[in-house]
């Protein structure tokens, strides 16, 4: 029996890591080779991914359907915008946006998590629309339906230490990319931690988890706050990109987009919302070239998904592609039997 040590054989368990590395390299190279439009789109996809992840932390992991994540997105965006209009520091704007979104999440969460299922969904819808109407009507503060304009793409700086100019889109792209990757990594750690397990237990059986000594309400609130922070982060990175902030980002139809993206990609997987966010933009982009009536196609896709493919796109991969890959490359690690050479 001989085992080959060099070069090491490619095993199934290495594939995800390799693909991830390739993906990150690809993302890093986009501004160099893909042109302004793709760079711009990718940033939007990244922000939308964070938004969709925020929604799915609540639905896929905790079992709570929130139709109001757009409120935290909007709070993050408006807060960042207001800050940037006064103090042109990107760091302050983004952190401020996230913080305010978190505060609102604490308040709303406290009110919402004592209710379940349909009432929770309606409460979040309700609060979401309340924030929308504030954004629309409070002209003096939010600019009303015109929104806030002239928001600078402020430099990323720590006074006295360094200052990076963000006005070239390329630079801002790298900021958004790095922040998003870090945020996604943190999200991954959270859902695979004891906290993540506890949330999933709440999703699966409220009554059983109380008997594991868990206060359902408290943990739901924690999940709600984390989700609010992520939505707020996504929103906070919007104003420097677009230089304006307008009320539609607070409308329930924006929340619905997060719902759609998660469903599209698969609500029961980690990457589902991210894949869904990507697909959402790609589909929209493709369809819009042929007809302005792309919403019909989106609607049809939704119908197909709900009726036929509830696991989302990622489940198609998991159920078909991955087992084939396993077979082809072998498990790797402790599961591998030593073979004769």
């Amino acid at each position, binding site marked *: 029996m001989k085992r080959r040590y060099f070069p090491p054989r490619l095993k199934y368990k290495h594939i995800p890591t390799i693909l991830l590395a390739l993906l990150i390299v690809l993302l890093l190279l986009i501004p160099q080779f893909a042109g302004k439009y793709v760079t711009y789109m990718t940033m939007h996809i990244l922000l939308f991914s964070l938004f969709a992840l925020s929604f799915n932390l609540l639905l896929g992991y905790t079992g709570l359907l929130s139709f109001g994540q757009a409120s935290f997105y909007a709070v993050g965006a408006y807060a960042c915008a207001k800050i940037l209009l006064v103090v042109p520091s990107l760091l302050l704007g983004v952190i401020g946006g996230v913080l305010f979104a978190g505060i609102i999440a604490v308040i709303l969460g406290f009110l919402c998590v004592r209710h379940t299922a349909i009432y929770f969904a*309606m409460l979040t819808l*309700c609060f979401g629309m309340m924030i929308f*109407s*504030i954004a629309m*009507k409070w002209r003096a503060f939010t600019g009303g339906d015109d929104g806030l304009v002239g928001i600078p793409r402020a430099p990323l700086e720590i006074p006295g230490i360094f200052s990076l100019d963000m006005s070239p889109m390329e630079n801002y792209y790298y900021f958004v990319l790095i922040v998003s990757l870090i945020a996604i990594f943190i999200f991954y750690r959270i859902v695979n931690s004891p906290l993540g397990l506890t949330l999933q237990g709440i999703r699966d059986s409220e009554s059983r988890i109380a008997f594991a000594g868990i206060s359902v309400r408290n943990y739901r609130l924690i999940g709600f706050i984390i989700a609010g922070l992520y939505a707020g982060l996504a929103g906070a990175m919007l104003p420097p990109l677009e230089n304006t902030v307008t009320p539609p980002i607070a409308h329930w139809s924006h929340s619905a987009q997060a719902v759609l993206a998660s469903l599209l990609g698969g609500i029961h997987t980690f990457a589902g919302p991210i894949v869904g966010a990507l697909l959402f933009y790609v589909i929209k982009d493709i369809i819009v070239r042929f007809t302005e009536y*792309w919403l019909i196609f*989106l*609607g049809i*896709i939704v119908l197909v998904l709900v009726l036929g493919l*509830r696991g989302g796109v990622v489940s198609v991969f998991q159920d078909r592609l991955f087992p084939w890959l396993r077979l082809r490359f072998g498990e790797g690690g402790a599961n591998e039997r030593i073979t004769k050479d």
Partner: protein
Amino acid sequence: MLEVLVFQGLVGISSAMYLWLIAAGLTIVFGLLGILNFAHGSLFMLGAYFAFTFYGLLGMNFWLAIALSLLGVGIVGLVMERFFLRYIYHLDLPYQLLLTFGFILILDDAVKMTWGGVFMIPRMPVFFEGAIPIFGRSFPVYYLFIIGAGVVVAIGLWLLLEKTWWGRTIRASASDREMASAIGINIPVLFMMVFAFCAMLAALGGALGTPVRVAAPGIGMAMIIQAFIITVIGGLGNLKGAFVGALIVGMLSAYGTLLFPFFELFFIYVVMAVVLLVRPQGLFGR
């Protein structure tokens, strides 16, 4: 001052009737089929567009136009239930909301495709023109008709549910689907018919608005949120609650526009939030 309040109250009651028509259908569908139909507002919108086309564009008789529009939306409702909703009764709430949201997307864009994004201008039938002086102000005759129509529908529905065989069947099936099926009630057909009927109620709301309200893409979306609010206030599945809820929301809107002109929408959401927080089962729910 009092005259202003009473007058505005009447205006509120009149606008409440449109809301009542959508909310009635929405709450019956929830009570019997167990589905929260997000797309109910789009059915309202379709009813308005159909009526506009038959009456406003093709010049048909007003009543005929309304009847045809009900028929059209009824067919849409039949198709929706038979080929789509039927397959999701057993699914969780997120999927139900999502499927019906898919319908909103499709219907809204279909309307834009067929009629364009233009607003449809109201056209008043000759026999409803004019106004009645109430407290020294002119109250349009049509508004009175609407109030009458809404009350007639309310009484009609109540009679239907309480006094007829259909009503008993519906109530039995709502409280225990399996049992009803076991004693021979054809549940699939019943559900299909009831859904189509509720679609027609929503369409009636839209169609009756032709003389006074604008039809535009997106009116469905605005109405569905208010309809949700009403069914929550009244209690999901509770018809009486829907009527009272509609009155409340209609009047609040009317007084809101009078007293807090910028924040009437916000105000209504606050009421909904308060109801949900304090008594989620609604005023009349169990």
